[in-house]
């Protein structure tokens, strides 16, 4: 197995040992239980929101907290003095967080489809969930390498939810009118929600889907390349 494979294997081993995998699964089960409480009539409205919350906000929180944990344990630094590439280290962490999001998406989508008869383009949803979780993993990385401690991470998460996530959710429920669309287009959460809605056969203009795809791909690259990569080493060796 090459070094990337070994790093990925190690990440998955730690996902289980640190119970991140289990927590991710438990959160998905929680969403599913909520679906049963909401009932079949409204399930179609809430499933995209739950999936959105899981693969965007949970991804930020899981990757952010796991990196803070690693910073505390000084393990980021010790990996940097091995022959593996930094890009492989970051990619392995990215992949493990995408996997958690992928697992949740499949679980919630299958339950929604089989028990509540929600129409889903599963393939599209899974493809979009990769991009959404990738972009949000980068935001999680960004928080972990730029913020000082775990309390700051939680504060940043709250801020992120208030500035980006809540307006997107309000818009989805019609609380915010269409005039907000041009403002929300610059929100990663809104772009994510548009893509998820599209996979649930909601009426979304194709132009907005293209813009969302370009936007999420761009922030994944720009955040990763210019903000996470240079700062990762600095933060790791400063422990």
């Amino acid at each position, binding site marked *: 197995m090459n070094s990337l494979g070994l790093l990925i294997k*190690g990440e998955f*081993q*730690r996902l289980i040992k640190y119970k991140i995998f289990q927590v991710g699964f438990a959160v998905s089960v929680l969403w599913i239980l909520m679906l049963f409480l909401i009932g079949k009539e409204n399930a179609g409205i809430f499933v995209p929101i739950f999936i959105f919350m899981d693969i965007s906000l949970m991804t930020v929180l899981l990757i952010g907290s796991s990196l803070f944990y690693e910073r505390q344990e*000084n393990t980021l630094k*010790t990996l940097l003095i*091995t*022959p593996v*590439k930094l890009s492989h280290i970051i990619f392995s962490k990215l992949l493990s967080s995408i996997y958690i999001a992928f697992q949740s998406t499949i679980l919630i989508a299958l339950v929604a489809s089989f028990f509540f008869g929600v129409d889903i383009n599963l393939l599209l949803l899974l493809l979009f969930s990769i991009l959404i979780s990738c972009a949000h993993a980068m935001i999680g990385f960004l928080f972990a390498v730029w913020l000082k401690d775990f309390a700051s991470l939680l504060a940043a998460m709250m801020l992120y939810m208030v500035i980006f996530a809540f307006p997107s959710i309000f818009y989805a429920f019609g609380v915010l009118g269409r005039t907000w669309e041009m403002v929300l287009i610059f929100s990663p959460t809104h772009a994510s929600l548009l893509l998820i809605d599209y996979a649930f056969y909601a009426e979304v203009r194709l132009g907005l889907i293209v813009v969302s795809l370009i936007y999420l791909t761009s922030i994944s690259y720009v955040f990763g390349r210019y903000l996470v990569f240079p700062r990762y080493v600095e933060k790791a*060796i400063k422990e």
Partner: protein
Amino acid sequence: MKVFEIKDLRFTYQKNRIKAVDGISFSIHEGEIFGLLGPSGAGKSTTQKILTRLLKAYEGEILYYGKDLKSYTNTFYEDIGVGFELPVHFSKLTAMENMIFFQQLYKQKSDIVSLLKQVGLYEDKDRLVGEFSKGMKMRLNFVRAMLNNPKILFLDEVTNGLDPKNARIIKDMIRTFKENGGTVLLSTHLMNDVEELCDRVAFISDGKIKEISTPRALKLKHGKRILDVEYYDNTHTKHKTFELTNIGDNQAFLDLLKNYNIETIHSGETSLDEIFIKVTGDKIHE
């Protein structure tokens, strides 16, 4: 053969514009244990981070086996082992799981079981590292540094938190590593470790090297060439000091030895602790 040749090395942390390393030059020879000594914030750790390629934005020149360090790729890490000052393990993995994970990343591998046995952790290999004491974690740190059978060991306060028995085990392993041709860069403020292990030492303070020599030469340079004698003259304990030069011809000294009951004799040899304080202008931070 020179493993490292460092010429006019400078490093400034961009964030606070602090000159951590300010024009230091020294070399480390193959098969030697080189001690980098200095108070906290003197520039030891920064120098070590530069030599282990964790910090790359330095000025000056570093040659590794005669070739610019910057020209090496990550395969450089196949050659080195780093023992950090603080534990560097996944606390929710066992000691063995930690070692297997890290060792897989290297081409060259040493015998984990043998290393764990040597540091006395074999019986605890299946325990979670989070349950380990500080001393056990530090011993595991040393095993971590040796996992790839390195040519060069970078050790930062390697006996920190260890009881005398376990500190002895680690020091013996370092000596054996050296006897087998290994090179060691030891950063520490523990002068016992330095006296026991180091072939040469550099005292670093405010980012500059203040002294560089062998421990013996430093002691001779900074010590006083005197002999203090305590003797009993049938009523009281008395004390006299003699010049060490031509002591065998000093009749007063010879008479004292012949006619009185000698209680103690001390040379004016200084300790590395005292040299440390004198050279770096700082107290040792225990």
